[in-house]
């Protein structure tokens, strides 16, 4: 009596993923079944045609390494920049707060600086929200 061959077994046989014992069993079943033979022939022909397709090797001239390397090293630059700016800002604030100027001058200057920073932050936030809802943001100009 012929053993039934499942679709998965047929795929493994087609792709050369079976051991010698299983191969023999499947081959015997294929020999004895017209339907299985036809099915296998269809998938084999499709496989052959698929394998004639090949993505061109020379599609991408030059290595992608430079771009990757830039992306790998850029965060280090940003971290150093931000740390340096923060240290200078903290030092500036310390000097400003401990300087012998009147409290009123300190408050007025602080108000200007905080105001500028808030305006700057709100503009950036607005632009970011506009960018998020821009339906054409993925269109390359």
């Amino acid at each position, binding site marked *: 009596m012929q053993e039934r061959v499942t*679709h*998965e*077994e*047929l*795929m*493994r046989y087609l*792709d050369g*993923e079976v051991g010698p014992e299983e191969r023999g069993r499947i081959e015997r079943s294929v020999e004895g079944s017209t339907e299985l033979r036809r099915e296998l*022939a*269809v*998938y*084999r*022909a*499709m*496989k052959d*045609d*698929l*394998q*004639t*397709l*090949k*993505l*061109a*090797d020379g*599609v*991408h001239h030059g*290595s*992608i*390494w430079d*771009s*990757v*390397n830039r*992306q*790998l*090293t850029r965060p280090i630059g940003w971290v150093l920049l931000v740390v340096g700016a923060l240290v200078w800002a903290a030092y500036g604030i310390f000097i400003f707060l401990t300087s012998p100027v009147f409290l009123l001058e300190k408050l007025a200057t602080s108000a200007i600086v905080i105001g500028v920073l808030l305006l700057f932050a709100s503009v950036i936030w607005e632009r970011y929200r506009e960018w998020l809802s821009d339906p054409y943001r*993925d269109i*390359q100009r």
Partner: protein
Amino acid sequence: MGPEVERELIRKCKAGNSRFYEPLVRAYEQPGLRLALGMLGNLEDAKDALQNAFVKTYDALARFDLKRPFGPWFFQILRNQCRDQLRSRKARFRLEALDERLELRPADPESGPERRRERAQAREVIWAALEQIGEEHREILILKELQGFRYGEIATILEIPEGTVASRLYHARRALKDALLEMGAEYP
């Protein structure tokens, strides 16, 4: 590049030496580009995906188990990157763009012009059918037939049990067969 060399390079990258990442990038960029191109269908998106996948892979190297092979792990990250890109940009596989990037494998010297023309026509029909089937079917067929991965490697890349690969391939091939029949192709 042998697995020992790869492991040594990764060990050095893990220690923070990004210049040792260069040979790995150079070794995997061509097969990676083929996979990304097969999944996304156009060169610009494929290059973006490849670049992002290399950066993500480098960032994740700390978690990489040196006992595992690097290739399937990288292709798994690349495949996820391609899928994310397809979803976030609502892009779709574009056949025209991909077809320009294709070439036929060297023709059999014994085959005549008629046979070569038939093969070229079959190729066009197959790509059109690949465009019609779902992303999941297409990616497993590309991994198997265009990239030539074994079942174990496909299982790692797709993050599925090895036993599921045959079943997924069966469904993908059946979907491709149906698409081809709908287009009037005759098999075998």
